[in-house]
């Protein structure tokens, strides 16, 4: 077990070094950040001065060594544009992304689970068929387009047509509350309203996934002996479904939710861009478009770490939930 964890962490370290070198070299090749930063009519002398202060006059491998040395000391350089430490910039914005991701996770579970269980219990009713067709739509509709359409309907069309219809906000986080130095939106009414449309957009895909998974597992569990036994004992239907069936559905749902949580954080890049949600995803896109190298590399290091940690936790949890899974054999 310990050997397994150590091996996984070493592998993660290797991936981080390789990826950071690739991105460093790649971004080095494509553009001159100085050209993006200072006005086009600055003299060559001024450009040279800016290059020197940022350390961009050194050869590439020297720049990478300086970067690695700093990175090992926890310093990922300063953003070329904001002038703040890149790591600080990312950590400052991470709570917003996590808040959005958790809200959409909660939403997709709250809607997807009951629908999926219902479709599994009564597979032939029109309602179930509608749910399953709807889940294909959830998979197929381009997510960012759905976000735009939600803005169109709830922030433009409906409030224009119906006078009493509330105009839902389509950008930003709204009012926030400081909790232990972290800004949170969902504690204020205004913040909740701002959270609504982005969270719905982000939850669609995962909601559809949970519907399908819950339905498949429910259909697998229903014909088993212990459900038949519970029926024979004369337990009420609500207790059979609510306790015995649901418990077994939760294992795959928990695994997939955990694994998909990383996907949600990654996909938040798109949702944040649409709704101008001030999270890390928006920061990444802005930094890529403006060639802000320190921020992109720092984001990459954090996200690789985040994913490795997430996968490790899911693997470890899985071995706890299901004793048949042996980590050692998968690790070798």
């Amino acid at each position, binding site marked *: 077990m310990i050997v397994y964890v150590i091996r996984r962490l070493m*592998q993660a370290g290797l*991936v981080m070094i390789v*990826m950071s070198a*690739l*991105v460093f070299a*790649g*971004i080095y*090749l*494509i553009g001159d950040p100085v050209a993006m930063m200072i006005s086009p009519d600055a003299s060559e002398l001024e450009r040279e001065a800016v290059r020197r202060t940022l350390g961009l006059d050194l050869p590439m491998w020297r720049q990478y060594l300086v970067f690695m040395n700093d990175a090992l000391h926890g310093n990922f350089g300063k953003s070329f544009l904001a002038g703040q430490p890149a790591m600080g910039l990312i950590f400052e914005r991470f709570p917003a992304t996590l808040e959005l991701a958790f809200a959409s996770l909660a939403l997709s579970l709250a809607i997807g689970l009951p629908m999926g269980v219902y479709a599994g219990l009564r597979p032939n009713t029109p309602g179930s068929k509608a749910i399953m*067709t709807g889940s*294909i*739509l959830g*998979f*197929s*509709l*381009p*997510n*960012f*387009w759905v976000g*735009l*359409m939600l*803005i*169109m309907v709830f*922030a*433009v*069309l409906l409030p*224009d047509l119906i006078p009493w219809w509330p105009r839902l906000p*389509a950008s930003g986080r709204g009012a926030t509350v400081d909790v232990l130095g972290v800004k949170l939106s969902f504690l204020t009414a205004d913040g909740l309203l701002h959270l609504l449309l982005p969270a719905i957009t982000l939850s669609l895909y995962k909601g559809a996934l949970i519907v399908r998974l819950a339905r498949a597992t429910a259909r697998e569990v229903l014909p088993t002996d212990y459900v038949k036994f519970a029926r024979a004992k004369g337990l009420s239907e609500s207790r059979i479904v609510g306790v015995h069936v649901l418990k077994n559905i939760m294992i795959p749902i928990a695994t997939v939710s955990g694994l998909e949580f*990383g*996907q949600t954080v*990654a*996909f938040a*890049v*798109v949702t944040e*861009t*649409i709704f101008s949600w001030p999270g890390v995803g928006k920061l*990444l*896109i802005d930094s*890529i*478009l403006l060639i802000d190298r320190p921020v*992109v590399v720092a984001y*990459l290091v954090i*996200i*690789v770490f985040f*994913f*490795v940690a997430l*996968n490790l936790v899911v693997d470890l949890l899985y071995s706890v939930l299901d004793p048949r899974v042996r980590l050692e054999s998968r690790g070798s």
Partner: protein
Amino acid sequence: MTDATLDPVAAAPAQTPFRRLVSDFFENRLAVFGLVLVVLSAFVALFAPWISPQNPFDIGGLDLLDAKSPPGTVSGDGKMTYWLGTDGQSRDMMSAIFYGMRISLMVGSVSVIAALAIGIVVGLVAAYAGGRLDAFLMRIVDIMLSFPAILVALILLSILGKGIDKVLIALILVQWAYFARAARSAALVERNKEYVEAATCLALPAWRIVFRHMLPNCMPSLIVIATITLARAIALEATLSFLGVGVPVTQPSLGMLISNGFEFLLSGSYWISFFPGVALAIAIIGINLAGDHLRDVLNPRNLR
């Protein structure tokens, strides 16, 4: 009844496996509907230059006074009707969508075919060779699959820059690992079958056993994965173009068109991003519906 030819079962035409697949497929109305959508999208993509009312890339043919006309407006010179409206540069949306579909489907299918080819080679070689090579290749696949496709593509494009060729490279790099894993697991099953043993006894070269004998038996499951990956590839390209790191402005795919309409959305010009999205959804839904049923039809448990 001794005459066998009078037996209605024997008189029916011999059912080849392929025919049964086709008839199984057409039994499901939803799947046929999906296929119709796919054929429609492919038709529009293939014949875009001939069926479009206007050439959206010809800047000279655009009349700026017609910019942002709602659907159904007749053009300023009275020559044509903008059935789906025009965008901010007074391009006819219907023509732009036809051409956009061409780019979206082209990028999607080329990237999937290339990724499939790479994945097949890697997966089959890993399965046949086994041992250290297998472990090494699958470790790379594991690492690739542990990161979300959108993120890897985004980082790759931030390095590569813009352009259709760059998008293709990024899409191939994020997709080959799915096929490699699927091909390997399919080949591992085939590897222990008797026909492979027989081929080995005949001392056929390894490449011949792998690609001539094992590969055709692995194809059904790979084709199913390819259809679903195609839908994902088209959606991914649209997303990347929407974020501004995908195709260039001069070659707008459907995602790019939606992105262009974003700025006009809040002022009520909904059609600029609405219709390209509908076109994109039609293509993706069609592929998913058809692919979903194809999986049931090609399921080895159904193949007798």
